[in-house]
């Protein structure tokens, strides 16, 4: 909470504080686990659990690929148009959602990171990256979008004390692992069907009578 609220709250609450005294004061709940530290938003994995997933002995990459082994990549113009349109639709949906709540969406300007939309509510900065998805590019788009929004959060956090990252995608990812991974990294993952409810639940849209 903001400093001035904390100070005011302390001033009002202090005269009302009464120490909690119970017969169980020294009790330690058995069901509370030994905390596993969360480092940089990730839970460390135990080596004996991860070992089977680490594969086999390293295979050296071929640094001398022959010209015939290069693959040329062509972009399908129709797919590109579809992707750009979906991206714009996601971006406009979020912008309208914000504007309807009286929040001004921001676009990058000057030295800003190249985010899609950012905004601020109650002193917290939110930065969002949009990604269109198709069956063929879903994995790559999610990797790209997550990397981008993590970098934008990092860059904005140099200037603002609390910055939250949001990845907006065209539909629910096929693999549940993406939701879990984003949770671990403290990144909100949303898509059109859940965007309003999720953002409201995480108080990114300001007040709602409760």
């Amino acid at each position: 909470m903001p400093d001035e609220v904390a100070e005011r709250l302390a001033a009002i609450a202090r005269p009302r504080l009464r120490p909690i005294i119970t017969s169980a004061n020294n009790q330690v709940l058995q069901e509370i686990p030994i905390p596993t530290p969360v480092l940089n938003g990730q839970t460390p994995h135990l080596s004996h659990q991860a070992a089977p997933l680490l594969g086999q002995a390293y295979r050296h990459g071929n640094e001398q690929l022959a010209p015939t082994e290069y693959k040329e990549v062509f972009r399908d113009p129709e797919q590109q148009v579809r992707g750009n349109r979906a991206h714009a639709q996601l971006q406009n949906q979020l912008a309208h959602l914000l504007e309807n709540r009286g929040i001004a969406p921001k676009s990058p300007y000057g030295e800003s990171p190249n985010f899609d939309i950012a905004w601020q509510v109650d002193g917290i900065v939110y930065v969002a990256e949009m990604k269109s998805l198709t069956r063929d590019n879903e994995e790559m788009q999610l990797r790209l979008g997550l990397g981008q929004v993590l970098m934008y959060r990092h860059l904005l956090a140099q200037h603002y004390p609390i910055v939250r990252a949001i990845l907006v995608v065209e539909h629910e990812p096929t693999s549940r692992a993406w939701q879990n991974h984003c949770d671990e990294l403290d990144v909100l993952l949303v898509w059109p069907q859940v965007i309003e409810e999720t953002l409201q639940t995480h108080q990114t849209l300001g007040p709602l009578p409760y």
Partner: protein
Amino acid sequence: MNDATNQSHIWIFQYHPDGYDLTDFVAHEGQQDHWPAKHQRSLMQPNQLVYILRAGGREGGSKARLEALGRFVSAAYANYEFDATEPFRINIRYESWIEPPLDRETMRSDLVLGVYHPLSTGLQATIF
């Protein structure tokens, strides 16, 4: 966007009375419990203070009240066995009752607290 520079590390955790009863918990289980720490958890550190806000629930938002003051006694940690859908938790030790509780009307009428939405109007969330 300059007002983002004045955030404290004192927290408000809110519970819904349909799912939890702080007085009953303390009476039967003691002063230490663990709460979900879904977001902003990287900012939560041991010894930081946390106010416990009871939402109005079925009685209505006007019945919301700050009931207690506690303290984090751990950093956030993951416990997938406890709840795979909400695995991140933080341990809190309840230290003091706020008596009488600070009710919404009092908070709403205060010049400072009255413009802070989680306290003045309420938000459907658990961590502020």
